[in-house]
């Protein structure tokens, strides 16, 4: 019944190979783009078919073994796919948003010389993400895990002439690789722990079953889950390893939309969801996840306040929203986390694509006026709502959604998280405060962005002012669909308290339910507290919007005065709390110094020194002996007599 599951990742792979090999020859953009989008759309259809079949099916977990991969002795790892409600949701998100973004990038990437290369990488990314999501055992997931890392490296470094692009690509891959180091350590320790209990497996289903072998709350399970969490922070850009995401904006905008907003960065959240059985058993790790998530949410929001590059703001908002998801995972609200993941995918993708269409328009105008201003800088935008009405409307809708205004998707998912962070047995009121503050700041900087780009008078250069066209339909259609989803998306998960059936939560019940009961994690508190908290969070959001409106629409000089008074604070926030410089100082440069020291110092001087030293000693010895043959007769005579004296002397005494 689910035998065609393997088709889902297979289609994008075929598309990628086809474009990779023949793309250069076809040259026709429509054909390349068409094939790429078609392939992702096909996999979307198969995914939808499986999703709805699973919806109706009673048996929720289906495994499909394709072939045996590694079999040594009693270790048996094979290529296997796993479909359960969690992965069903994820494949719908990935393929759905993926198709829209592929359609969008046909128009957006028009005229690029590496057109075929772009679509080849995008399809390869889709394949890797689907492998990650559908992976039946940890190793197949790891293939997808590193595969998406590879594709993000390729796509960020798409404009490889630009030095900044290739450095950003390197940074992204290496930071991901550090995360993968954590994932690998967790994987190996888990495998060793289970194997020592006699269970030889990496298969998720078996891991879940034999989870009880490891005593819950123990050191072992905490170490395993912490390592996995390190992997998640690397991939989903949380506190320690988030520096690569803002630099990843070097890549084309569809890339940022697909990879750095909707799909790849959510891999960490998905992984925690996939292994919720283990995580639920380690309260210490859950608490660290919650704290890191909350801190990241708050911390990234502060940086987002002061950025001027439209994509940087969105990047930091993504980091902050991911902080929310991890907060949800940390406090045990697994289904809420995944729900926020889904809604975030919709409105963040719409925001990124909207910003892309703005940049596309400005780029077109500057190109037309032969200017070289930065199309991404918000300071020379403004008043574009008349020029790009559709982009404006969809952008506005998504901004409202992300700010958590009721009736929009963001509100339902974010509020659920905030409630759980307060009410859950694993939650803490401090986490709720962090979340709420971050929500306020999110509302502020999102509307600051909207007001600076679409409202106020037009600050673009005079010559290019009236050449900003509305983007072609291939760009606006995905925007509209995503805008719609941003609004509608929330209704499938309306919480019980607001009278909704919360079908999303029940749909994910079989995946998370067991772990929650076993470790009796639940959010409890009276309805009253829930309502008050909801009201407070909405109030904070509205206040944020009002401040933004005052500062950027009513009296545009206010921000300048603000910056004047808080120059130090502004400079710190603007320079991303100097995190990058800190990492360079603490990790990158010492590594280089150690490397050079080891090479110049140790390798060349010490080891080679020893080797050449022995050679030199032997040569010296040889030279020394040479002098004994001086050629003078009496030297030899003396030598002879000495010899005689010594020998006889030896015998006599």
């Amino acid at each position, binding site marked *: 019944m689910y035998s065609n599951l393997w088709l889902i990742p297979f289609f994008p792979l075929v598309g990628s190979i086809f474009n990779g090999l023949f793309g*250069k020859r076809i040259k026709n953009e429509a054909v390349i783009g068409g094939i790429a989008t078609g392939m992702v759309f096909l996999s979307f259809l198969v995914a939808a078919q499986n999703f709805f079949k699973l919806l109706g099916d009673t048996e929720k977990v289906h495994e499909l073994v394709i*072939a*045996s*991969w*590694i*079999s*040594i*002795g*009693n*270790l048996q790892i094979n290529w296997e796919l796993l479909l359960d409600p969690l992965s069903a949701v994820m494949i719908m998100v990935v393929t759905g948003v993926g198709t829209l973004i592929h359609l969008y990038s046909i128009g957006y990437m028009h005229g690029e010389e590496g057109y075929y290369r772009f679509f080849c990488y995008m399809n390869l990314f889709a394949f890797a993400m689907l492998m990650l999501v559908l992976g039946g055992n940890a*190793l197949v997931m*790891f*293939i997808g*895990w*590193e*595969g998406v890392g*590879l594709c993000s*490296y390729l796509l960020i*470094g798409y404009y*490889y*002439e630009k*030095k900044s*692009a*290739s*450095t950003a*690509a*390197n940074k992204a*891959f*290496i930071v991901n*690789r*550090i995360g*993968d*180091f954590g994932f*690998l*350590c967790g994987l*190996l*320790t888990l*495998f*060793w722990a289970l*194997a*020592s*209990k*006699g*269970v*030889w497996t990496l298969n998720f289903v*078996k891991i879940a*079953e*034999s989870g009880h*072998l490891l005593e819950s709350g123990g050191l072992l399970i905490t170490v395993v889950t912490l390592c996995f969490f390190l992997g998640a922070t690397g991939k989903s850009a949380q506190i320690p390893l988030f520096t690569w995401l803002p630099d990843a904006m070097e890549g084309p905008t569809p890339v940022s939309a697909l990879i750095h907003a909707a799909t790849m960065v959510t891999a960490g959240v998905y992984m925690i969801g996939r292994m919720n059985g283990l995580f639920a058993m380690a309260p210490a790790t859950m608490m660290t996840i919650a704290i890191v998530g909350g801190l990241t949410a708050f911390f990234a929001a502060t940086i987002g306040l002061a950025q001027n590059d439209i994509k940087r703001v969105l990047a930091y908002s993504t980091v902050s929203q991911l902080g929310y998801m991890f907060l949800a995972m940390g406090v045990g609200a697994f289904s809420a986390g995944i729900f926020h993941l889904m809604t975030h995918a919709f409105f963040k993708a719409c925001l990124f694509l909207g910003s892309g269409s703005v940049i596309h328009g400005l780029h077109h105008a500057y190109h037309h006026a032969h200017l070289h201003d930065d199309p991404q800088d918000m300071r020379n935008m403004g008043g574009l709502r008349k020029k790009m009405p559709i982009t404006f409307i969809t952008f506005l809708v998504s901004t409202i959604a992300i700010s958590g205004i009721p009736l929009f998707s963001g509100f339902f998912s974010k509020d659920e998280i905030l409630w759980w962070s307060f009410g859950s047995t694993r939650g803490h009121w401090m986490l709720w405060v962090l979340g709420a503050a971050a929500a306020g700041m999110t509302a502020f900087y999102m509307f600051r962005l909207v007001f600076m780009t679409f409202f106020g008078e037009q600050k673009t250069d005079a010559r290019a002012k009236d050449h900003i066209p509305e983007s072609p339909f291939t760009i606006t259609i995905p925007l509209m669909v995503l805008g719609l989803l941003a609004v509608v998306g929330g209704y499938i998960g309306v919480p019980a308290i607001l009278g909704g059936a919360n079908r999303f939560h029940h749909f994910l019940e079989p995946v998370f339910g067991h772990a929650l009961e076993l470790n009796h994690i639940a959010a409890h508190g009276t309805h009253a507290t829930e309502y008050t908290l909801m009201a407070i969070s909405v109030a904070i959001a509205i206040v944020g919007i009002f401040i933004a409106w005052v500062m950027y629409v009513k009296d545009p000089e206010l921000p300048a005065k603000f910056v004047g008074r808080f120059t130090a604070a502004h400079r710190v926030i603007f320079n991303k709390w100097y995190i990058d410089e800190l990492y360079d100082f603490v990790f990158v440069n010492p*590594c*280089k110094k*150690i*490397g*050079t020291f*080891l*090479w110049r110092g140790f*390798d060349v001087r010490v*080891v*080679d020194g020893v*080797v050449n030293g022995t050679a030199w000693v032997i040569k010296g010895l040889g030279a020394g002996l040479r002098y004994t043959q001086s050629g003078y007769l009496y030297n030899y005579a003396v030598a002879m007599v000495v010899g005689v004296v010594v020998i006889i002397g030896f015998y006599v005494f």
Partner: protein
Amino acid sequence: MADYLLSIMTFFPLLGILVLLFIPRDNGGLLKGFTLAVSLITFAISLPLAFDNVFTTSGGMHYREFYEWINIGNFFQMNYNLGVDGISLWLVMLTTFITPITILSTWNAVDKNVKGFMAMLLLLETGMLGAFISLDLFLFYIFWELMLIPMYFLIGIWGGKNRIYAAVKFFIYTAVGSLLMLVAIIFVYYFAVQSGVPMNGFGIEELYKLDLPYNAQFWLFLAFGFSFAIKVPMFPLHTWLPDAHTEAPTAGSVILAAVLLKMGTYGYIRFAMPMFPEALPTFIPFLAFLSVVGIIYGSLVAMMQDDIKKLVAYSSVAHLGFVMLGIFALNMQGFAGGMIQMINHGISTGALFLIVGFLYERRHTRLITEFGGVATKMPIFATIFMIITFSSIGLPGTNGFVGEFLALMGAFHSSLRWYAVFATSGVILAAIYMLWVYQRVMFGKVTNPENEKLKDLSLREIVIMLPLLLFVFWIGIYPNTFFSKMNPAMEQMLEHMGQGKVAVVEMHQPTDAGSHAPVKKHGHN
């Protein structure tokens, strides 16, 4: 025919050299064509080995050949004793597979006395094949020394600037090691004869059955281990490798990296570890420490190189660190990981050296600063270089990952757990230096005017790279073709070492998953 296969395969290149001598010196094309033909025929001869699935069933030696060679009463006896089993099978295939590629790659790289060059390559192939299939310790020693000579000439005559220093250093380094081994071999034989064990020759089977006292095993393992450690190269003894590689011609350094380095690890598996199992527990922690240091040290130093070939040389120090870690884990996963990583290293590092060779042929320089923006000029080259870079980093789905993952898993299971954690950091360092060099060479704008006129890979060069790419993905996606032939031999080897009173971590599959299977027997240290 089957029972002479090994001898024919080994000595066919020698026959090739003989005929080669008659070809006129100035007719370069014919020389190269003929040598290529000889190496391809050798590959064809060795193919039945790969497809014969006797290896999947029994782990013992197959294609045995046994003739008495030198027999001086009971004082000294040595016989021509050949055989191949699961462990040496794929190394033999790797040798016969890499040599035609190397010859094809030096089509117009070498112009002065091509005949000598080709003769050296074929002699090298005979040496390597002989070493992998000889079961008599002394015969192994003869082939082991035979390999050094052509390599010395390859580096010494056709090398780079200070090739003499590199060639001499390479030769003395290895010779010192092998002399120690010779002493050990003689001592083993003398000890066996003296303790009344009827020894007819240096055959491995008899030597395995020998029960030497502990301190004898200790010193013998030290002697063998030291000689193989130089060849691997393990951490403190590795300085000959970067010099040898930077000075060697492309073909020389490809073969040096692809096969010669495996001699060391093969030596450990075939001779040092099974013959002296009791000495293992005392040496394993130390050697594992050295291999982990090798991984981290190799990667860190590779990061700071300004010469691509030296970078790749140090990276192979790191890769072989993984191999050794896997082998010293003394369990199935570790062994399999070590074995497959040997072959992966042969493929990915061999390919890397070919790539550096292509760049060197075009620009006659290996300094990274000289390049930049090559991707714009050579797109096909860029894609191939990228695939090989990711295979050498060990991206899942490529061959590197399978080897490294299994080696780490094996190490995790054995008593080397903490070593494995540090070794995993090598995964990060590998990504750093490989991507950094890839970025500095390929990406960015074309700054150096000479890079303008770089032309992309010719058909010949693509044909060289295709088989390597094929194996990169084949081992990555379906390594069972290789593992199925290795498993029985490895099980047998581990059992043998297990009996050597070393408490190997036995994994016993529980009858039913749920029950609490008896906790595993820990290594006794």
